[in-house]
């Protein structure tokens, strides 16, 4: 094994991850968030929807008049903020991961088709990509959500519809260079059919870039979901999410700083951890992206 090969292997493995302080921090935070999301009913001290009007707008435990029962305080309806933040993790991660999976699958397949088949398919797909790039993505998402109505499925669909473009472009350009390689010609000469060549011989070459784009996209998807929910165009208010916590009770923010502070910190921490991991993956797999 050559020196560079050894180096690359060391960088990609767990040891490589631990060598990067930011990537390690990202991984640790993300693991904690996944645990919180998975075991929310066991971890959350209260029912996130339970109202207690006598305990409304209680400050966090360490502030004067705060109590241990509500560590991060309560909102205008007396709901426990810590519990709502914990449950909110579920939605943010669910939406983020679903959107990235959906967008990357669609984008990768379309990119493969465009790059491999070329000609009219390619021209048509690239024009569609141009159109998508010509809209500010947030405007597109806002407008489609306004027409579909707020719901969990709709927000996932809308963010996937606006998110596949990056994958399609990158995959296409990589396919263009890979398809000219000799082993593809060899596969063709052996009589392999197009779908087989695309999925078995070309796809493995583009997977690394797809993973990098996905990890970098995850953070922006989480922010987009929270933003749309905040505008009332994302997840319906009945489900506790970070975006809806920031939207409801806006008139109390001035009285109770803890209402907007904690869900916001949750978003920032999540996006930071995902970005740290994404940056690391990019440095390891494909620094040109």
């Amino acid at each position, binding site marked *: 094994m050559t020196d560079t090969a050894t180096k690359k292997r060391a960088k990609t493995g767990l040891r490589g991850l631990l060598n990067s302080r930011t990537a390690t921090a990202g991984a640790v935070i993300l693991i904690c968030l996944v645990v919180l999301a998975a075991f929310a009913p066991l971890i959350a001290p209260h029912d996130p929807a339970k109202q207690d009007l006598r305990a409304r707008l209680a400050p966090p435990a360490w502030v004067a008049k705060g109590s241990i029962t509500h560590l991060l305080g309560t909102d205008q309806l007396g709901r426990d903020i810590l519990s709502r933040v914990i449950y909110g993790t579920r939605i943010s991660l669910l939406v983020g991961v679903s959107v990235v999976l959906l967008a990357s699958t669609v984008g990768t397949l379309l990119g493969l088709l465009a790059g491999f088949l070329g000609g009219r398919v390619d021209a048509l797909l690239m024009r569609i990509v141009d159109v998508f790039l*010509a809209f*500010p993505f947030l405007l597109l998402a806002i*407008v489609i959500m306004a*027409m579909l109505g707020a719901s969990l499925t709709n927000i996932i669909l809308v963010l996937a519809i606006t998110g596949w473009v990056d994958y399609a472009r990158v995959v296409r350009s990589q396919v263009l260079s890979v398809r000219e390689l000799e082993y593809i010609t060899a596969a063709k000469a052996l009589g392999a059919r197009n779908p087989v060549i695309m999925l078995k011989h070309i796809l493995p070459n583009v997977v690394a870039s797809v993973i990098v784009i996905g990890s970098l996209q995850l953070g922006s998807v989480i922010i987009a979901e*929270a*933003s749309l929910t905040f*505008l009332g165009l994302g997840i319906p208010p009945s489900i506790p999410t970070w975006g809806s916590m920031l939207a409801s009770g806006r008139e109390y923010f001035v009285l109770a700083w803890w209402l*907007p502070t904690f869900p*916001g910190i949750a978003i920032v921490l999540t996006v930071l951890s995902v970005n740290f991991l994404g940056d690391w993956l990019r440095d390891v797999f494909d620094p040109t992206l």
Partner: protein
Amino acid sequence: MGRYVVSRSLQAVFVILAVLVVTFIIVRAVGDPSRLLVSPEGSRENLAQIRHVLGLDAPLQVQFVRFVGDVVRGDFGKSFTFGRPALQLVLERVPATLLLALTALALAVPTGILLGMVSAVKRNTIYDNLATTLAVLGRAVPNFWLSIMLIVVFGAYLKWLPPSGYGTPLHIIMPSVALSAGLAAIVARLTRSSLLEVMSQDFVRTARAKGLSESRVLTRHVLRNALIPIATVVGLQAGHLLGGAIITETIFAWPGVGRLLTQSIYNYDYPVVQTSVFIISVTFVFLNLAIDLLYALIDPRIRYD
């Protein structure tokens, strides 16, 4: 160059056509707008009558041709809420949005470049760490949350700035800061990497060897070359400020196109929704066209891409 201008402009025309189709679909899919005009107790005949007046009973392709004709004549219909021509309403709001977006741009670019320069020149020092942390945070903090926290801290607790509204120079400080943070972070990150790359090149060593002062090397030789990729990204991102402005304007009650759009969505005022979307998209398309053509003029290599 001529051929590039023509093909790039044709592409822009194609995109605007697509914008028209999308706007058309939105209006027809948003739910039957005639239902919004009839009271729940209204009769079926009432509904049919209104559908006829709005032309919604015609076949879709006929509706589309009529729609394009109306757009060409600048007729986007009347606002349901304000009873005035939608186009007029939207155009009145354009200056406020432009003012906000340009102020944010004017804040983001120098801040980003400065942070990036500090990072690159003082590489691996506490200054670098501080500037990099700011840039990393700028990418992770959602624009709408930053807006809320600014209002809570500077508007409500400290009472230094008006929490929302429009009119005095004080009003624009918080919205433009909130809108510029993301872009400033991108610029800072890019400036750092771009400067570091240029600084390692031979001509910089030559400039130093000639005995130029460090500040002269930095401004005349390094920064000038590092600015090219920065300008590209600023150009690409400038249009996205329009998207971000939708949220910022809504939070700060800034009377721009973005706030008009969200209000119209809440009020089901579909002529105004359609017009705002169209105007924002067309501005975005022309902005991108202008930037692309400008680059082709500056850097001939781009044309052959």
